[in-house]
Every structure is written in structure tokens, then in C-alpha cells.
């Protein structure tokens, strides 16, 4: 059976729409803290060394600036950009997410193929009362993650998805 070639004249081209729901607004704060925690320590160590080792000072400060410049841009830009990108949605038969910032990922997983649904909360996430829902399938491509959900809400979502996926039979491969 030969495939029909794409017909660009009959019918309109279809693209992915954004999923329906956004992450919680306080995710921006979470991502910012996370970025700061990632970027600051190496800079602080370099600056500290620069203070302690005068002969190597220019080189250490140069290294700190080389890491610090892009680092600051990352801290300033990533959280808001991420918030604009991150979306999620569940329908009667699928989980649909969009994540990332410079590199955006849309993911669709049919509920019938889901193996486990869990919540994960890192220490910084806990400070903001946020949770990530992790939906695993049998693929080695990694789980589908819904970041930046309110903790209580995430628990409800996990229960709901677990009930639906348990109703599906088979080993989801």
C-alpha cells in the first residue's frame, strides 16, 4: 500500500495546538531559584579563589565572567520563557504536554500505554508547594513529566490517572 503524498491544496495544514493548562505561576520562582542554585556556586568559588590567590586573579575573574555572563542571562530569561512554554492537558485517552524553553518538546502518551504515575518533589519544589507528575510508559525514551503543579492538585491528578490506567488491560508495551 503506497502512502498518499501530502496534498497541500485540499484541506488545511494541521499543526499542534498548545495544551490547555499552564503551570502554576509560582513555578517561575521555583525555576529562578533552581537556576540561581546551579549558576552561583561555581562563580562564587572562582571569585573566592580570586580573592585568596592574587597572582591568578585576572584569569580567575575572567573565568568567573565567562561563566557569569551567560549564567545571568540564563537566570533572567529561562524561568519566564519556560513558564510561557510549559503546558499540559489530559483528555479521555491521552496525556499531552509541552515543555522546555529554547528546545521545546511536545509529548503525547496514550493512557492505555501508561505503566506508572507518580509525583516527584525536589527540595526547592517543596518550598514552593509544587510537584512534578511523572508518567512512565514502557519506552526507553523517558517518562512524560508535568512540572510546576500545585502539590494537592498533583495528588488528585495522580489518583485520577492511576484509576484510568488501571482499568486498561495488558502490560502496556
Amino acid at each position, binding site marked *: *500500500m*503506497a*502512502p498518499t*503524498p*501530502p496534498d497541500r491544496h485540499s484541506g*488545511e*495544514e*494541521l*499543526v*499542534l*495546538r*498548545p*495544551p490547555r493548562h*499552564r503551570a502554576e505561576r509560582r513555578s517561575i520562582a521555583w525555576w529562578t531559584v533552581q537556576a540561581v542554585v546551579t549558576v552561583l556556586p561555581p562563580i562564587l568559588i572562582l571569585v573566592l579563589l580570586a580573592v585568596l590567590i592574587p597572582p591568578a586573579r585576572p584569569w580567575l575573574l575572567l573565568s568567573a565572567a565567562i561563566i557569569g555572563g551567560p549564567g545571568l542571562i540564563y537566570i533572567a530569561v529561562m524561568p519566564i520563557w519556560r513558564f510561557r512554554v510549559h503546558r499540559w*492537558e489530559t*483528555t479521555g*485517552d*491521552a496525556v*499531552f504536554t509541552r515543555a522546555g*524553553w*529554547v*528546545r*521545546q*518538546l*511536545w*509529548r*503525547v*502518551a*496514550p493512557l492505555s*500505554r501508561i505503566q506508572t504515575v507518580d509525583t516527584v518533589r525536589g527540595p526547592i519544589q517543596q518550598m514552593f508547594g509544587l510537584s512534578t507528575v511523572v508518567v512512565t*510508559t*514502557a*519506552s*526507553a*525514551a523517558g517518562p*512524560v513529566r508535568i512540572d510546576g503543579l500545585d502539590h494537592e492538585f498533583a495528588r488528585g491528578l495522580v489518583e485520577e490517572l492511576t484509576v484510568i490506567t488501571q482499568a486498561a488491560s495488558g*502490560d*502496556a*508495551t
Partner: protein
Amino acid sequence: MTEPGEDWRRLDPRVIGATGTWCALLIATAAAIMWWRDAPWWLHLAVPFPILAVAGYEALRWIKTAYRLTPELVELRTGVLVRSHRSIPRPRVRSVDVSANPIHRLFGIAVVKVGTGHHSGSPAGAALTLDALAVPDADAMRRRLIRGADAGEQDVVARIDWRWLRFAPLSAWVLLLAGSAVGGTYELLDILGADPDTVLIPQLFSWLGTVDLLPVLTLFALAVLLVGIVGALGLYVEMWWDFRLLREPNGALRATRGLFVTRSVTLEEERLRGVEIAEPLLLRWGGGAYTYAVATGTGTVEEENSIYNASALLPPAPLGEAHRVAAAVLREEEDPTEAVRLIPHTRHALTRRLRWTLVTGAALAGLLILLGVLLTPVLITVGWITGVAVCAAGIPFSFDAARNLGHGVTGRYLVTRHGTLKRRTIALRRDGVIGWTVTQWAWHRRSGLCKVTATTAGGRGAYHVKDVLLPEGMRFADESVPGLLRQFLIPASSQREQEEAP
């Protein structure tokens, strides 16, 4: 065959002898080197102790290890210091892999690996290893675990044809083996006390100073290449000796092969998700291809890079044979990777590859020239030559890579093709797709260039349609798995307003 009792059984005791022999061979080699290097007498006295220690440990492991096969479970209790008890429900068993190295064969035993075909954790973690059983026991174990494997006739799907040996030199093994031959010679000289660093290499260099360099180096390169080719031929013979691909009466596929290390892999048919035809550049020029099964629990990235890939369905063989076997394995009239009409990708894919080549070349050249200006003028020359070389090599590859891209749907399969150094054509069962991923860089938003990935439980777990325009990628995904993606699609014209909605 009678179903065995539910009693616990020991491994074959000959495993102690086999491991002891293996250790004794190693130690004997070490002793020979020590004798050659005039080691003190007390070192020679120490020789038996490691052998005894290893044999003792093996004996302890043999005492502490037991396995049993119940109607529901395969169970293994093992561990000398840390005890473990692993059990696998028999319906979950998806693969049984029986292998034996030369020492195992001398002792008449074989190692049995039971795989569940589930990706959770490492592939090794999902398996249960019986190291080792007597050969008849191992074979009986395999036949009992793969249901109905011993009833009726086996069909031979494919067997080795030694004319295919011509494909052996067309592999990266030539260079790898040539390199390791040079390295191995150096190591051997070093161990034997010939002092290559301080004596031989200076002598070699002073000798090179007295002769005409070009013919000597050419001859040397040819000799090393010849060693590599002989090595690759030898490896091909070792790996694919007596290769047979069999269809068991219950539909399971069994591949057996090996000259010194024998190996037999059984794949249950229900694990099969498709096939992959892989053509590394040289092999492609020679008209040959690898054939792999896309099946749950095998063909992971790590496995593909090792010598033994359990998902191999054929040795490197002519493309026509690869297609024939792929079709037979999938029980199709024609191999979907051949039957499909692949839709080529737009010029965006080529533009992107050319841009990458030019940017890489320019960046390398720029960096070297900058350093040249700051430090030494030699680097300026090196810089522009590097830039030109990268572009000259990269541009033909860019064209080839872009030309190789393609995707399509045929019958029960979706097919995707990509790659230039190793062109892969994958046919994946449409009902084996367990999700979609679309990846797009922010700067490709306007052009709509993206990567559409079908995720599956088998093989590498994710198969890509690279550098496709979003609408065409969505049409392909929607055609492959009807109904799943459609609910998330909208006309391209209304995309902007959707994005602004809360």
C-alpha cells in the same frame, strides 16, 4: 518432556572447574612472563593461591546458588556475601539466551540468561542469569521457558552464506583491530621487557632518519591495514560461524551462531515491533546491510555498540537478502522498508545541515586563527586549512544525509530513514507506537522544522523522523496512529491566537 518438580536445583558443579581453569590459564600466562622477567622465587610460590581462592569462591557460590522452575515462576537464590532472591513470572519471560565460551564448551556447560524484555532499569537488571548449567539442561530450560518451543518442526529462515565474507572488511572493525594490533604489540614488548619507550622507539626513529620515508610509511600503513582486514575476517568467522535463524513452531525466532563462543538467542514473536536495516557507509557502498529486529528488551544503544547484539537477524549480508529476511521475520509479503514509498524531506533539512557544516568549519578556523594572531603565525595556516577541510568533508555528507531522510506509512508499519555514516531504515509496527514526541528549537518556530519521534517499548525505544516540517510530521503521525494525535491538532492559520489564550 516432563515438567520438572518444584524442587530447588543446583547449578552444574563443572562451573567450578571451568572458572578454575580460566583463572589457571591467566595465572599460568602471568607465571610465564614472571619466569621470562626473572622474578624472585617466592613470587612463583604464590602462583597456586589465586587459583585456589577463585575455585574456592566458585565452590561457595555453587553451594549457595539454587534455582527452580515452578509452573508460575523462574526463581534464583544466589550470593555469597549478599544474598539475593530473584523471581520472574513465567508469562513475563520474553527471551532466553544460551551462550558458552570455549572453556564452558570444554566442560560441557552453558550460561542461560532469562530476559523479561522490560526496559525498567538496565537491561542487565531485568535478566536472571544461570551461570552455568549442563548443556542438555540449558537447552531444556530454554525449551520449557519459551512456550511450545519443542512441538513440531523448525523452519530455517536464513543461514550463513560464506560469500558474504566479502562484507567483513567493509566495517569499522578493520581500523579498530588494526589500531589494537599496534597497541597490543607495544604492550607485549613492554611486558616482555624489551623497553619500547627507551630502546626500541628511539632506534626506530633513528632508522627512519636513514631511509626514504614515503615508501616505508606507505608499506607500514598497508601492512597495518592488512592486519586489520585479516582481523575483521577472523571476527566475522568467529561471530557468524554456523549462523542460523530459525522459526520455532510457536512462532518464536531463534538465532544461533559462533565458532568459539557459541550463542543462541530466542525472541518471542509477540516482542517483535519491527525491523531495522542499518547500512554503514562502506557497507552501503558495497551493497550490504545489517538486519536487526526491533523487539522489546533488546537492541538498546549499549547493546548495539557491543560485539554481541542480541537483536541481529543476519550477519552483514547483501541488501536483497536483508529485505528477504526482514519480510520473513515480520511474516509480510515484502519488507516494509522496501515496499514503502518514502517521502523526501524539504530543502530545510539540507539548509540546516549545510549551515551546521559551515558554522563548525568557520568556528574552528576562527578559533585557531585568533590563537594564531595572539601566539604563533603557524596556527593561522593550520586554521584556514582546518576550516576548508571541515567544509570540504562536511558538504558531501550534508547532501547525503539530507537525501537519505525520508518517512512513510505502508500497511501495518511506519517507516523512517536517516543517517549518512550509518544509514538506518526502520520499519515500526504502527500498533507498537506508545507515544509521540515532537522536538523543536525556538529558532525553527517560523519555518516549522521539527523532529517527530515515535516512542515504543522495543529496541532503542524512540525512533525519529528528523527535520520534517510540523504539518507534514503531524500528517504522518496521524496517519500512522489514527485517532491519537488528531484531538491536539488545529489549522496552522489559527495557531497564533491559540498561543495567546490563557
